[in-house]
C-alpha cells in the first residue's frame, strides 16, 4: 500500500484527533493510525473535558458529543486516615448556556471525536500498531511502519500523538523515555450507581456534576492525588502517584485504590455501586522541564507524548487538544506556502505553542514537579496530618481553653517540621508557584 499522504497522525486520543480533524477539515490528505479496535479502546482519563479548547476545534460540539455532567462544584480535600478538610467551590454561575467543564467517558467521547475526524475527510485506520518511523538517508521522517502486512505508509509530515508511552518517538531517539519521577501511574475504577443516587449523594440535580480531588495519607507519603468524578450514572474513582515513588515504596496500586475506597469520607459516596471496569494509565508529570524537542525534519510531537500536562491544575486533555490543533495549524501554514516540512519550517509549531496557554502555564509551574517529588512525605503526609489535627483541635469542644488549643496546634507544626522547615517549605512553595 504505497500511498503518499500530506500527514500521518499516530494515535487517536485527544491530541491526535484534534490534529487529524484540523488537518482534514482544511483539505489535507490525512491518515490516522490507531492500534485499538476502536478509537478510545486504549485511552484512559479521569476524565474532565474543558469546553473552551474543544470549541476552538468543533464549536458546536455540544450538539452531539457524549457529555456526562457539567461541573458546578469542585472539592479539594486534604485527608488523613479518618478525616478530610479542604476547600469547596460551588457556583450556580456554572449552570450556563455553554458550560465550562464536563465529565466525559473517554471510550465514548473518543468514538464521537473520531467520527468527526472521518467526517472531516481523514482516513482512520484502527487495529493498526505503528511500530517504527521510516526515515530517508538524511534522517528526515518520511513515513511510518505498521504491523500490517506490507504496512509502510508515507507522508510529508508525521504527527506523533502516540501518548505518554508511545514507542515511535523514543525508538527513533526523537525524545527520551519518560523518567520514573516524571510520570505518575494512576489506577481507576468505574462505579455505577443510579443517576438519582448520585444526585442525592453529591447534592446535584439534572446534568450538574461534582468533582473531588484529594491529597493526603491516601497516597501513603508518595506524591499523589486521589480523584472522584461524577458521571451521569457512574463515578470515576482513582488515585495516581509518581512511578518513582511506587518503585521505592513497592506499594500496590490496586491496594492503594481499595484503601482509598474504604476511607470513611469516600466509602458512603460509592456504597452499593457496581464496578464495571478497572483501568491503569501513566500521566506525564514532569512539567515544563520534561518537554522534549517538539519538532524536526518531517515530524512534530503533541499531547502526552510531549509531556504537555499541567499536574498542578490537573489539566491534560485540553493541552493535548490545543497542541494537536496548533501543530496542525502550523503544518497547514507551511503547506500553504508550498514549503517543505523541514525542521526549520516546522519550528513554527513551537513558536505558536509558546504563545499559547499550554507552554505559558507549564513554564509558570516549572519548579513544582521537583519540589513535590523531593518533598513528598512532607506535602502528602505530614502536612495533611497536621491540618487534620489542627481542624479537629479547633472544632472539638472539650473544655480546653482556646489559647491552649492554639498553642497545641502551633507546637504540633513546629515539632513536625521545625520553624526553619516550615518557613523554607512555604518559601519554596511560593517560589515554585509564582
Amino acid at each position, binding site marked *: 500500500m504505497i500511498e503518499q499522504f500530506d500527514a500521518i497522525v499516530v494515535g487517536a486520543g485527544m491530541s491526535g484527533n484534534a490534529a487529524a480533524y484540523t488537518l482534514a477539515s482544511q483539505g489535507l490528505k490525512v491518515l490516522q493510525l490507531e492500534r485499538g479496535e476502536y478509537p*478510545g479502546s486504549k485511552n484512559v482519563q479521569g476524565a474532565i473535558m474543558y469546553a473552551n479548547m474543544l470549541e476552538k476545534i468543533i464549536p458546536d460540539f455540544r450538539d452531539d458529543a457524549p457529555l456526562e455532567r457539567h461541573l458546578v462544584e469542585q472539592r479539594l480535600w486534604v485527608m488523613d486516615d479518618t478525616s478530610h478538610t479542604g476547600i469547596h467551590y460551588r457556583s450556580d454561575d456554572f449552570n450556563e448556556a455553554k458550560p465550562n467543564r464536563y465529565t466525559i467517558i473517554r471510550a465514548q467521547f473518543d468514538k464521537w471525536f473520531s467520527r468527526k475526524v472521518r467526517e472531516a475527510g481523514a482516513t482512520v485506520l484502527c487495529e493498526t500498531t505503528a511500530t517504527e518511523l521510516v526515515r530517508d538517508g538524511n534522517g528526515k521522517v518520511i513515513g511510518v511502519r505498521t504491523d500490517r502486512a506490507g504496512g509502510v505508509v508515507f507522508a510529508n509530515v508525521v504527527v506523533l500523538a502516540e501518548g505518554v508511552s508511545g514507542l515511535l518517538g523514543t525508538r527513533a531517539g526523537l525524545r527520551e523515555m519518560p523518567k520514573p519521577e516524571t510520570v505518575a501511574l494512576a489506577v481507576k475504577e468505574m462505579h455505577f450507581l443510579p443517576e438519582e443516587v448520585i444526585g442525592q449523594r453529591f447534592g446535584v440535580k439534572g446534568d450538574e456534576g461534582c468533582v473531588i480531588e484529594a491529597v493526603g495519607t491516601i497516597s501513603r507519603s508518595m506524591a499523589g492525588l486521589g480523584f472522584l468524578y461524577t458521571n451521569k450514572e457512574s463515578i470515576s474513582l482513582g488515585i495516581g502517584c509518581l512511578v518513582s515513588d511506587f518503585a521505592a515504596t513497592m506499594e500496590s496500586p490496586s491496594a492503594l485504590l481499595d484503601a482509598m475506597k474504604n476511607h470513611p469520607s469516600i466509602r458512603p459516596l460509592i456504597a452499593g455501586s457496581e464496578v464495571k471496569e478497572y483501568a491503569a494509565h501513566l500521566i506525564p508529570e514532569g512539567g515544563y522541564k520534561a518537554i522534549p524537542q517538539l519538532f524536526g525534519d518531517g515530524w512534530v510531537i503533541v499531547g502526552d507524548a510531549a509531556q504537555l500536562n499541567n499536574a498542578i491544575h490537573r489539566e491534560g486533555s485540553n493541552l493535548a487538544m490545543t497542541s494537536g490543533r496548533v501543530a496542525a495549524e502550523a503544518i497547514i501554514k507551511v503547506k500553504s506556502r508550498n514549503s517543505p516540512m523541514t525542521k526549520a519550517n516546522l519550528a513554527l509549531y513551537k513558536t505558536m505553542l509558546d504563545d499559547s496557554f499550554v507552554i505559558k502555564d507549564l513554564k509558570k509551574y516549572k519548579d513544582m514537579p521537583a519540589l513535590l517529588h523531593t518533598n513528598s512525605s512532607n506535602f502528602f503526609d505530614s502536612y495533611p496530618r497536621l491540618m487534620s489535627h489542627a481542624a479537629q483541635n479547633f472544632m472539638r469542644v472539650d473544655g480546653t481553653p482556646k489559647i491552649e488549643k492554639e498553642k497545641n496546634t502551633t507546637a504540633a507544626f513546629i515539632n513536625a517540621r521545625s520553624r526553619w522547615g516550615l518557613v523554607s517549605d512555604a518559601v519554596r512553595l511560593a517560589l515554585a508557584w509564582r
Partner: protein
Amino acid sequence: MTIAVTKVRVEDKLYQNRYLVDSGRPHIIVRPHDKPSANLLALTYVCPAKCYELNDKGQVEITADGCMECGTCRILCEKGGDIEWNYPRGGFGVLFKFG
C-alpha cells in the same frame, strides 16, 4: 494466516475488563536473569495488573494477559534491559469500555 484468538477474563479486578489476547505472542518479555534487579522486583508489587510474579527460583516471570498497557514496567525496566516491551499487535490487548 489464522490468528488464535482467546477472550480471557483474569482474576480479581481485571475480570470486569475486556481483553483480546494474542495467544502465544506476549507483547512483553522478561529477559532471562538469575537475580532480578530492584526495579524488576518492584514490578511484582507495582504492576497494577499484577502481571509480574516471582517464581520459586526467585526469578521474575510475566503473564501479560491482564496487562492494561499502562507502560509502568517499560518506564522502570526497559532501559536497564530487564524486559522487552512492545504494544500488542493492532486490535489485541485490553479493550477499555469506558477508559
